[in-house]
């Protein structure tokens, strides 16, 4: 069987990380293709329930990324987001959800290389962790999909 290829969903803001990932492309920096980006206007828009939905539907890892503190296009969306992440991540940890599978980062529009590095590091660590079978099991995720490689 081929090496396990994790499914990774990235929730990113439009102004910093999405643009940063554009720069990764413009700079032709290569990174692992396991990640799929979903664009939000701002990290402040990212609903924590969507992260749980991603795990429900079979994601093995999640990246949440936006503008560095003070750099938010909307002034403070990322500050609000940060406070929510602090609490949400702690609650996940408390309920036993594997928080190593959710990577939070700040990637600015100028940090194309950082985006590639974040994706690669996430893919590597999730690959080591293996498929998120615990969650998939309770999500009654079809068995054949779990072993998909």
């Amino acid at each position: 069987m081929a090496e396990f290829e994790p499914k990774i969903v990235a929730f990113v803001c439009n102004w910093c990380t999405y643009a940063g990932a554009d720069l990764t492309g413009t700079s032709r920096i290569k990174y692992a293709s396991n990640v799929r980006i979903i664009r939000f206007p701002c990290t402040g828009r990212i609903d924590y329930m969507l992260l749980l939905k991603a795990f429900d539907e079979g994601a093995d890892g999640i990246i949440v990324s936006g503008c560095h503190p003070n750099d938010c296009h909307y002034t403070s969306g990322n500050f609000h987001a940060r406070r929510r992440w602090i609490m949400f991540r702690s609650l996940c940890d408390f309920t036993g959800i594997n928080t190593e599978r959710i990577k939070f980062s700040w990637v600015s529009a100028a940090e194309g290389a950082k985006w590639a590095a974040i994706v690669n590091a996430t893919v590597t660590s999730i690959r080591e962790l293996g498929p998120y079978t615990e969650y998939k099991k309770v999500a009654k995720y079809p068995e054949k999909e779990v072993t998909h490689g």
Partner: protein
Amino acid sequence: MSKIGVFVCHCGENISATVDCAKVAETAGNYDGVAFSVDYKYMCSDPGQNLIKSAIKEKGLTGVVVASCSPRMHEPTFRKACAEAGLNPFMCEMANLREHCSWVHEKGEATTEKAIDLVRILVEKVKYNHSLNEIKVPVTKTALVIGGGIAGIQASLDIANTGHKVILIEKDPSIGGHMSQLSETFPTLDCSQCILTPRMVEVAQHPNITLYTYAELESLEGFIGNFKAKIRRKSKSIDEKLCTGCGQCTTKCPVKKIPSEFNEGLGKRTAIYVPFPQAVPNKPVIDRINCTYYIKGKCKVCEIVCPTKAIRFDQEDQIMEVEVGAIVIATGFTVKQPDFFPEYGYGKYPDVITGLQFERLASASGPTLGEIRRPSDDKVPEKIVFLACAGSRDPAKGIPYCSKICCMYIAKHAMLYQHKVHGGKSYVFYMDIRAGGKQYEEFVRRAIEDDGVNYVRGRVSRIYEKNGKLIVNGVDTLLNAMPVEIEADMVVLATAGIANEGAEELAQKLHISYDPYKFFAEAHPKLKPVETNTAGIFLAGACQAPRDIPESVAMASGAAVKVAGLFSQDELTREPIIAVVNRQAPPVYSSCVGCFLCVSACPYQAIEKEEIKNRNGELIKLIAKVNPGLCQGCGTCVAFCRTKSIDIQGYTHEQMYTEVMALLNEY
């Protein structure tokens, strides 16, 4: 039932080199609700757009997904095409197959699979898109220009000449910027002040320009067409209305030994001072850090001698608020101080100076009245060495990028030296000569061929002083790295051009992006060089990257046209990407329970309370309401609302939820 069209672009070979575009189109064609699917070489070209338009008309498409480059690049293009074909532009979405896929992954099945996923996500999203109408907002037809160097001056004049009002703020006591410090300008060798000062005067006299010097931006709120800026007018300690600029105070001020900023420390100034004789406005300010009165509580000589009684020791900073519709940032650059190169001895040896200091030495208005004399003993240097890249192209101690202007000004400096010091010998240590520009290469050749400047290809390792000479250790890399040692009288370092101190804070106040070097980021490196990512804020000159005078002026005029274009309309249309609170039929009216936690979460104070009354005018319910003029569409309230009563158009709950579902199913 949706009828969605999928248009997969090859982008020449940019996408098709690693993604099997035909397979992407074929797979998408089989999705539920997709009525048409095709791949094409250049979707953004005229025939490509026509392909979309005719498909919309012929197939009666209800939604369009263009799978090509980043939406940040071409979303407006394709939305406009859809609108032209009669489809609401907000029924068009883009899948980013280029920047997020083909350019960052190797050719292979996985890359094509990812491309297919990206298309599927958007196909599913577009099923939940709604027709939206653009929002109209009024435009305040006054521009704020920040920075009064040549770029800010040019931008202000150009905007003012189109008939619109301009507020120009400058942090120093005078406008003029770095250009006013320069002696001659390359490649024409015309005198910098001679071409600049008439412009400075024009700014001061223009009926459409309000000039505030010694003023800085305090904060900024609002959005394109409707900014509110707070400006701090630093106290000048004089009443400008009374001051006639007679100069009595500056002559009599007893504190005379302050290094002059304008002369780069090579000359001195007083505590109450006008930075240079041609300053605009030509009225003094008191430098409170050095003024005896502010240090010791007594002196007041200036107050005594002032014939119009204009001195105001107790004047305070003023904060004023202005409403503007557009902003041009022209805050320029600064030079990196070369003391991070201890091997060159700057700061230790007085005759090792920076390029900007040399400008002051060569300038007729400078401390030596234009004669090249070395600072230590006023002697005319018989041998002079210029070091290029003193900080530039030096990741270890300086900055990795090329400062761009140094090659030219070094050639100019060497040339000026040769013109002014007959029989003098000049050397330039360089790595490459970067003289791309009209008449630039010819200029450098003239320095070498006609003026006898010795160009040596190699970096200098160190400079030390011995018996009154500066020993310069270098090599000639064109001669097998043969050592070259020059006993020089003076050394000029071409220091790197870097972003201003405080550039980061300013960018944060303005909510614009900046690059890793803290230069402000343009919206697109090629096609939007003067725009920022924040609509209504434009860039001019060296605040964006090192720029020479012609480039700064060209950018300024470009930015001015953008502002004038904006001001040519009375109303602006804005993307309707805003939050809305749901409304339902009575007796519910809305699922909003009126807890108003969203009010404190909103960065724009865009959420208000709406009273719902019955026919008798009795209050039934209080619910939240979004002011569409103020909402900027960040969605912070959306993720926060417990009852999911607020949603954001374009990124609705259904759309985002669907994207996640579509992404992970059929993976």
